């Protein structure tokens, strides 16, 4: 007999393991995040199957919704493109970590096997004595027995939010530059005109593609300096003859 729950478990279980492995093995952090999000959705399904509908929804809303979005925001701030090198720098570390992980899995599984065996399962199918369903029961527990913990958790969340603000806040050390000062600085410099927009006369309009000058050579000022540095590092510079110096423009 295969119950729907069994089908669900044997389909989503291997998938969740695979996506967990994918998260660990993916080179790009964005891919890891996507794998993790999928894993969390799988877990949400398991919660639903285990008579925890409230947790299932909270899992989707809080984890896949809020936490993972936060991860993605940070990833974008840090640089979506940044990919890990897969070469391990600590000698023997990867092997040791793998053996420890494997050993832990084996120890845990054997412990579970020894401890649980044929554990009688009470189950939560029968409605709780104190409520009609599990969501009702959870709510009742949270607001009665765990009320204090709940309030403290609320305080913790507020503290964490404040902490995040404090940590992310950057003190301004120089006075804010006004538009007038910026204009003056531009005219004092050697380029009063606006910088060329990216992609002008170019085949792409990506940020890192330099604009082409009328003679067909790339305009270095058309890309942000940091990206230009990356470009120069990644691609050897063009011959000097075709480069147009910024000052000549």
């Amino acid at each position, binding site marked *: 007999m295969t119950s729907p729950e069994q089908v669900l478990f044997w389909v989503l279980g291997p998938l969740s393991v695979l996506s967990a492995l994918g998260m660990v093995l993916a080179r790009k952090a964005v891919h890891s995040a996507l794998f993790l999000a999928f894993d969390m959705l799988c877990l949400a399904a398991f919660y639903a199957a285990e008579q925890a509908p409230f947790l299932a929804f909270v899992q989707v809303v809080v984890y896949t919704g809020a936490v993972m979005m936060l991860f993605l925001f940070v990833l974008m701030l840090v640089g979506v493109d940044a990919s890990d090198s897969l070469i391990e720098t600590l000698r023997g570390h990867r092997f040791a970590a793998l053996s420890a992980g494997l050993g832990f899995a084996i120890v845990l599984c054997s412990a579970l096997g020894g401890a649980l065996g044929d554990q009688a*399962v009470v189950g939560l199918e029968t409605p709780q004595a104190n409520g009609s369903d599990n969501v009702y029961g959870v709510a009742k527990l949270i607001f009665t027995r765990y009320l204090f913990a709940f309030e403290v958790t609320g305080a913790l969340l507020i503290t964490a939010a404040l902490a995040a603000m404090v940590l992310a806040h950057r003190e301004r050390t120089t006075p804010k530059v006004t538009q007038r000062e910026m204009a003056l600085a531009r005219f004092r410099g050697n380029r009063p005109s606006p910088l060329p927009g990216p992609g002008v006369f170019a085949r792409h309009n990506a940020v890192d593609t330099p604009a082409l000058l009328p003679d067909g050579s790339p305009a270095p000022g058309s890309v942000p300096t940091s990206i230009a540095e990356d470009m120069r590092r990644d691609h050897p510079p063009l011959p000097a003859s075709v480069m147009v110096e910024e000052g000549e423009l």
Partner: protein
Amino acid sequence: MSPTAYLYLAAILFSIGSVGVLVRRNAIVVFMCVELMLNSVNLTLVTFSRINGTLDGQIYAFFVMVVAAAEVVVGLAILMTVYRTRRSASVDDANLLKY
């Protein structure tokens, strides 16, 4: 089906998460692996709740989620600060406190 299968699954996920914490260098990915470990623990809590027929396990899982959310908020903020000063999110680059 016996809910113990979920426990084995949770054990495997936990181990994978811990190996990920150990081998990945990108701090954000390390954080994700920690989240996976927390999630697997939540799965065991939910499963035990079901085995025992009481809802307390689910309450614990709920609190774990809330605390994990707080942890992610602070942790990522710290990470941002570190990245801002060191231009790197690799945990190996923050190795000044040593012999």
